[in-house]
Structures are given as C-alpha cells and as structure tokens.
C-alpha cells in the first residue's frame, strides 16, 4: 500500500523538469555529468560515497523516511543509492528519465537540513551530495519550474521575487507611513551612510509580508538603533540559487549584498528571520567569494533580539500569555547554534514555554526548507504528506499545552502553516518578531 502511494506522488509533472528533459539527448547527459564529476567531484564526493558502509543509521534522522512508514527509499543513504551511486557507477551514462527522477529526489525529497549528519557515525554530509546532484540538474537544465523562476529573478533583479527597484523603495515608504500612524517620529532610514546596522530582508518580505518590515522598524526605533536599508539592489539577502545549484549566481548575489552593506559603510549586517538566507550569508555565499567567514559581521534576527534583551534595550509591557513552543530551524540552529539565544528571547517575552521533542540541533525539519517549498504548488501535497512526523511532534507539544508555534524562519513558517492546516492541528504560528512586537514597550 505504502509503495503504491509513494509511486503516485513520485510522478509529479513539473514543467521545469519535463520541458528541460525534452531538450536533452542521452549523449548530452553523459557528457555533462562526466565533465561535472571530473571538474567538481573532489575528495568529499569520493570519500563520502566510498566509505558509507550502508549501515542505515541515517534513516532515523530523516523526516521523509519517518513520515513514509519507514520506507527505505526515503532514507538519506537510500536517496543517494537511487541517484548518485548509479550516476558514479555508470560514469554518467544514465537515461533522461533517470535524470528526471534524480531531479525530483534531489529537489523535493531532501530539505538539506543536515540532521542525518548527526546520525551518521562518519559524518557523511548527505546535504552536500544532494546539492552535488542539484548542480548536475542545474547544468542539465532540469530544475523544478517554480524554484528556477526564483533563480531567474535573482539573476535579473538581484532579488528573489521580481521586485523592481522603485517598488522596493515604495514598499519601504509605505511601511514607514503606516508605522508613523502608530509611532509618529518613526523612520525607515534609507541609504544612511555609516550606520551601525545594515538591515536586510528576503524578497518575499516586501512582496507578501511587508508588515514584517514595519515590525522591524518599530523594534529598531524602540531600541534606539542606528540602522539603515539600501535603496538599491543588494537589499535581498535570500538565495535560491544556492538551492538550484547555480553557484555562480550565489557568488554574484552575495557580492552585491556585501558590497551594498560596505558602500553604506555600515558596521554589521542584521538579517530578518530567515534561515536559508542566514546559511547563504553566514556559511555558503562568503565561501564562493573567497571569504572564510563573512567579510563583515552578520547577525540573524534571533541573535539581534537576544542582544537587545540582554542589553536591556527593549522593555516588555506584558508577556505573551498563550503557551508557546519553539521550532528550531535547521539553518540557524544546526547551521548557527542560535537555539539558546532563541530560548532566552522567548523567556523574556513569553510567560509559558513548552519544549517540543526532539528539539535544538535534533529538531525535525519543517519540510519546507532547502528550496523544497520553493518548488511550488506541484509538490505541496507531497511535502506535507512527507512530514507527518512533524505533525506528530507538534501535536505532542499541543497536548502538553502549547498553543502557539514560534518559527523564526520564513520557510519554516510557511512549511508549518501547511502542516498545521493539513493535519488540522489548530495551532497559531508566529515569528519571534511578531511576539516581540506584540508585547514590547513601543515608546
């Protein structure tokens, strides 16, 4: 039964994959893959694929595996076996259908959350291997349509959501106007030279969640921070190209982002509540530009809020009363170690906190990250069905009293929304900023 249902989800039509595959010839496939293996397949690829002893211990790490009734096809090593192992063994001489299948597995059956790295005794980085496959797909032009569209947007506009330059400035003015109704002297300082903080957000904030910029401005204002945002491209810290395998674009995007912060002579970058952007700015993009760490200090919102509360820059009027639970996003917890800071902020702002289990580095992925939610509507059902284990985990927290889920990451927020809705959990989801905004002293 399970097998059949899996088969059904596995043949999801996707314009990007299908049209891309139509343009390929088998000869092209093997030529591109062989060249890729030769050029970019290094010691990590070799060691990871050659030392895995197929012990299966990684399985328990993966929410796909756990949610699909322990179907071994969804275990981390199982996904590598179906795709990369064959590609390497056949030296790239694989069929076009095989590439389509590989693209689906690499793009929609792995969130690159790296939980399995903590369950593999050797520390084999399956996320790296999946990204290696995604880059092959990128080079072959077989990428799910929706995420490829965001990558195109990155290339054309330097932001993820086709936001035009004037629209960006307009949005900021609009949010400033709105906020001034509440706090008359509030400003969203544009292009301020030498400010302490360069505040950057992801493309979807001005596009869909403009109130988050409003809230950030209120927090900055109340804390008396010296901050600014740019009026030029470079304001977007997000990076879907990191997930499509378009590494050249990763470098371009981060270059513009860092250079904009430096053009304004700011001292540090503070980012909104986004996990993958943090991964890109703090961990990945800097490497593509030849920086060991980011060229100027980078802070995720969690870290920034922590600093504000630690330094007593923000005061809380009344603590958030509904019991909250915290979802630890992979990119800021396994990828940034910010879990204790998040708990500190929650402790400062909420009266009741319920841990979900597992938590911190061992938290289950939201199922949306790693670009999976960005692969769009064709995969929504699969994504939600593939994370039943998250629903169980949330239901358990709910049973112990939690009413609100705090998800300090855009992708997690979106992914959890879908899960809460699909499984009828009836829980509210909030960003950390939402909670702070609600209960802070705004004067």
């Amino acid at each position, binding site marked *: 039964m399970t097998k059949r249902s899996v088969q059904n989800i596995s043949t999801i039509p996707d314009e990007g994959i299908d049209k891309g595959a139509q343009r390929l010839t088998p000869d092209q496939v093997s030529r591109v893959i062989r060249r890729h293996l030769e050029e*970019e*397949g*290094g*010691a*990590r690829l*070799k*060691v*990871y694929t*050659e*030392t*895995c*002893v*197929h*012990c*299966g*211990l990684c*399985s*328990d*790490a993966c929410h796909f*595996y756990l949610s699909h009734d*322990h179907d*071994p*096809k969804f*275990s981390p*090593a*199982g996904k590598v*076996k179906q795709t990369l192992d064959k590609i390497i063994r056949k030296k790239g001489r694989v069929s076009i259908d095989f590439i389509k299948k590989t693209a689906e597995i690499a793009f929609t059956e792995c969130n690159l959350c790296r939980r399995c*790295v*903590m*369950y*593999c*005794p*050797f*520390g*084999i*980085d399956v996320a790296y291997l999946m990204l290696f496959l995604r880059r092959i797909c990128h080079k072959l032009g077989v990428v799910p349509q929706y995420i490829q569209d965001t990558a195109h947007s990155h290339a054309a506009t330097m932001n993820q959501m086709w936001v035009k330059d004037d629209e960006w400035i307009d949005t900021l003015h609009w949010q400033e106007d709105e906020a001034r109704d509440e706090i008359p002297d509030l400003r969203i300082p544009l292009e301020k030279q030498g400010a302490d903080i360069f505040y950057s957000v992801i493309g979807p904030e001005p596009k869909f969640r403009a109130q988050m910029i409003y809230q950030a401005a209120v927090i900055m204002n109340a804390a008396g921070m010296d901050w600014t945002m740019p009026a030029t491209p470079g304001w977007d810290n997000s990076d879907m190209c990191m997930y499509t395998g378009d590494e050249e674009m990763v470098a371009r995007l981060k270059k513009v982002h860092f250079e904009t912060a430096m053009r304004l002579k700011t001292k540090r970058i503070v980012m909104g509540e986004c996990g993958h952007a943090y991964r890109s700015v*703090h*961990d990945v993009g800097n*490497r593509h530009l030849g920086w*060991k*760490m980011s060229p100027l200090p980078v802070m995720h919102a969690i870290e920034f809020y922590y600093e504000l509360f630690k330094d007593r820059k923000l005061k809380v009027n009344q603590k958030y009363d509904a019991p909250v639970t915290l979802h630890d996003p992979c990119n800021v*917890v*396994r*990828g*940034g*170690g*910010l879990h204790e800071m998040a708990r500190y902020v929650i402790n400062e702002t909420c009266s009741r906190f319920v841990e979900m289990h*597992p938590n911190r*580095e*061992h938290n289950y992925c939201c199922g949306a990250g790693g670009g999976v939610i960005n692969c769009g509507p064709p995969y929504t059902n699969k994504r939600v069905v593939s994370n039943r284990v998250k629903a169980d985990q949330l239901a358990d927290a709910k049973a112990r009293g939690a009413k609100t889920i705090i998800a300090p990451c855009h992708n997690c927020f979106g992914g959890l929304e879908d899960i809460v809705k699909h499984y009828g959990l009836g829980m509210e989801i909030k960003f950390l900023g939402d909670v702070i905004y609600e209960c802070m002293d705004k004067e």
Partner: protein
Amino acid sequence: MVGVAFTVFLAGSFFRLISMWRLAKKKDGLIFSYISIFFALRSIVHWILPFAGVSMRKHPAMTIVAFLFHVCLFAVPIFLSAHVILFKESWDISWWRLPDMAAEIMSWSVIGSCLFFLGRRIFLPEVRYLTSLSDYLILAAVAVPFISGLWSYHQWAAFQVVMIVHIISGEIMLMIIPFTRLSHMLFFPFTRGYMGSEFGAVRHAKDW
C-alpha cells in the same frame, strides 16, 4: 606472504590517504581552511565513546555490538598470543599478549557481531535496501579469519587446511582495507573531523 599483505595494507593505506589529500588540495581546498583541530577532536571523541551521541542512544543494541565488534576486531589479531609469538619468531619483537580465554571470547564476539550485522542486513528493511553483494562479501571477509582462527585453535576437523584458510583470509582482509568500504577505518577521523570542524567552528552546533 605476511610481508606482502602488510606491505599492501600499509602502502595501500598510505597511497589512498596521500592521493585523497592531493585531491582535496586540488578540488576541496576549503577543507584545509575550515578544519579545526579542537572541534575535530571534539566530534571524534563524541563518536568513539559509546552512547555519547543521540544516534547511539537510539540504537543501544547496535551501539554495544558495534563497539564490541570494533574493539575485538582490533585487539584480537594484534594481541593474540599465537600472533605475538609469530612476530617474536620472525622479527624478534614482542608485546603484551591476551590470555587465550579472553581472546577466545573476543573472537566469538566478533563472529556474533558479524551475525548481528548480517541479521540487520537481512531483516531490517532500511539496511536491506542499501545492501548489495559487496556488503555481504566484506562482512564475510571479516568473519572468515575469525571463524577459521577459532577452528584452528580448537584443532577441529581438517584444521591444517582451515589454518591455511585462516592465513589467506586474514591477509586478504588486511589487503582490501584500503581499497574497499573497509577504508572507513582510514577516513573516519577525516570525515568526522571535518564535519566536527564545520559544525563546531562555523555553525556553533553539536554534531552528535
């Protein structure tokens, strides 16, 4: 024969490590920038202590068997009194010897562990799915020297022939270490250490 086996093992291991080092220098230069001895050791220590990590606590049977297996797998061939005496005879060097009784129990442990691993490969779907012929062969390559060793020790039927099997299978096992998945013995400190460094120094998180 033994000389050949040791040479292949040592030279092969050396060759694999050096060529991987060079490949890493050429293609994965970042490893050298991000490796941090402290965090590498922190991770390795957590993974060579039984039950130090969540994964190990989740699979207590596997953890106990895996540790027992690896300890015995190393200790028996090196400290078995018959082997030490052979080294003494050939090269006039000797070291501490295991009491025969202990060596016997440990050898049975290795065989038992191999059966446990075989059982996992056959009965656990997630392991069976990953298993191919080579995995069974490697398991056999490890088990045969111990089975034949015990056989010869007890001088069961045809032990002279089994002794030959013991010697040859032992040498085969030694020689294939660098060139098969058994090379995890060589690469474990590097893969774990690299991941430990990335998790510790860059990502400020645990990896166990």
